[in-house]
Each structure stands twice: as structure tokens, then as C-alpha cells.
């Protein structure tokens, strides 16, 4: 489908544009963080809009787990044309009273064109920041405040960790 490719290209350019303006002498970790924050907040706004548009007509999202399942199925299919590979919960009531979910994708579409293995693992977080924001934005529209982080062990598999903030 043409529109999937358009999004991939746009995303690649977004990342490239942000990193192209780095000051040459020793950018430092502050600049990196700023860029990641920009990407994440863009993803957040898109996620908010998607969270409004995608769940149509049914109010079946009553539990947190339902919302997470919706993310893995409907949201992933709408944006990346495939479903998330696995969703695991990791509630450790003693360490942190919040709900933790681990979403795993064994061939993440934005990373699959880059490499297959350990090459470019350090560059991968830049390409995951937007998607982390997307997840956080959709969750926030559906009423769940959360913190989403991503990690890559070997391309193109990646995992997103969602920690729900319960006040």
C-alpha cells in the first residue's frame, strides 16, 4: 500500500532533519534528549488524534487490558499494517504499585529496512521515539496516564514498555 511507504519515508526524514541541525563540536547529551523529546511529543499529538478516531461506535474498552489489546491490534494495524506480536503484563505489586505492560514486536516496520542483527543498535532509539509518543498519546485519550519507553536488543525486534501511572 502506498500510504504505508509514505509514512515510513516521512518518519525517516523527520529523524534525519532533527539530527542534521546538531552543532558539530560535541553536541552533548542535552541536544540528543531535546530531539527525542520533540519526536516523542509529535507522536503524542498524533496518538491523541488516533485515539479519538480509531475506536468507533463501541464502548467496549472497559479494562486497562482491553485498551492495551486495542493498541496491539487496531492501532498497530492502522499505522503499521500488522499486529503487535506479543503483549505481556508485568505487575510487580511490591516494587511498584503501577501496572507494567511489555509490548513486543519482532519485526518493527520502521526498523526492518535498516538491518537485521546487531548493526545500528545505538541509532535505533531515534527511530522509536515517535512510536513511544504515539502509544502514550493514544493511551492518554483513552484515559490512561502512562510512561512509554522502548528498547532494542537486536534489529528489527523491539519492545515497548508501558508503565501506567496510577495516582
Amino acid at each position, binding site marked *: 500500500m502506498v500510504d504505508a511507504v509514505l509514512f515510513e519515508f516521512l518518519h525517516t526524514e523527520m529523524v534525519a532533519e532533527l539530527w542534521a541541525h546538531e552543532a558539530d563540536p560535541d553536541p552533548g547529551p542535552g541536544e540528543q534528549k531535546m530531539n527525542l523529546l520533540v519526536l516523542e511529543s509529535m507522536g503524542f*499529538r498524533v496518538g*491523541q488524534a488516533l485515539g*479519538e478516531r480509531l475506536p468507533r461506535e463501541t*464502548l467496549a474498552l472497559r479494562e486497562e487490558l482491553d485498551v492495551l489489546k486495542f493498541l496491539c491490534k487496531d492501532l498497530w494495524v492502522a499505522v503499521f499494517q500488522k499486529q503487535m506480536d506479543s503483549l505481556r503484563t508485568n505487575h510487580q505489586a511490591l516494587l511498584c504499585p503501577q501496572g507494567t505492560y511489555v509490548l513486543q514486536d519482532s519485526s518493527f516496520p520502521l526498523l526492518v529496512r535498516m538491518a537485521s542483527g546487531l548493526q545500528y543498535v545505538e541509532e535505533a532509539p531515534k527511530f522509536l521515539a515517535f512510536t513511544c509518543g504515539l502509544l502514550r498519546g493514544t493511551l492518554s485519550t*483513552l484515559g490512561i496516564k502512562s510512561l512509554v519507553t522502548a528498547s532494542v536488543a537486536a534489529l528489527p525486534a523491539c519492545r515497548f514498555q508501558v508503565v501506567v501511572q496510577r495516582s
Partner: protein
Amino acid sequence: MAVCVAVIAKENYPLYIRSVPTENELKFHYMVHTSLDVVDEKISAMGKALVDQRELYLGLLYPTEDYKVYGYVTNSKVKFVMVVDSSNPALRDNEIRSMFRKLHNSYTDVMCNPFYNPGDRIQSRAFDSMVTSMMIQVC
């Protein structure tokens, strides 16, 4: 046709409220405000019942002698409240449902607008014109 249309955010403050200007607008604002309690009651009642699917359309919230108030809630807990004139007998349930569906679609379009910050008052002209089309009295 609707006499007053309101869009209420998740935190229960109005994002958009518009009524037919010939009447006392404050009265409609009060009606919408009191209907929020009924909406909350309906939502929590639905949550407790062991129903697999809940509907977004809440139906008639409460009737008064001149007006009827209808409600609709989205998945993001944004509520739409509509006050219609009781004297119009021809307004059936499906017409109300289709009006709410149009409202929901227009609200989704407003949300997707990158110039709109979620939580602000809705100032979109497209949304305004859609609401006007629902409020014009057909003579």
C-alpha cells in the same frame, strides 16, 4: 431540530456550547450542567452491568415540559449533550442518533486538526457550520 448543543470535555468543562440565540441562553447552560450528573450516572450504571458492549448513545437523559435532553459519550469520555424542543413530534430516535453521529465525526475531525490543542475551546468554523445545520428551524 436541536435548540442547544454542547460538547463537554472529560474533566467536565465545556469545550463548545451553542444555543438558539432568541431564548435565555443561561437556562440552557443550566440544563446542560444538570444533565452531566445524569450522564455520569448512566456511565457508571453501564459499567456495573455485565454487558459486553456498551453503546455510545445514552438516549433521553431527562424530559422537562418544554424540552428533552439527549446524551452521547465517546470512548475518550467526551460528552455531547443536545437539548431539543419537545413540541416537535417528528424527531425520532434514529434522527437523534444520526445527529450525534455527525457531531462525533466532526469532533474527531477537530481533534485531528494539528492546529487544535486538545482541551481548548473548539473554534473550528467547519464544526460551527455543522452545528448550525442541525439547529436551523425548518419552517
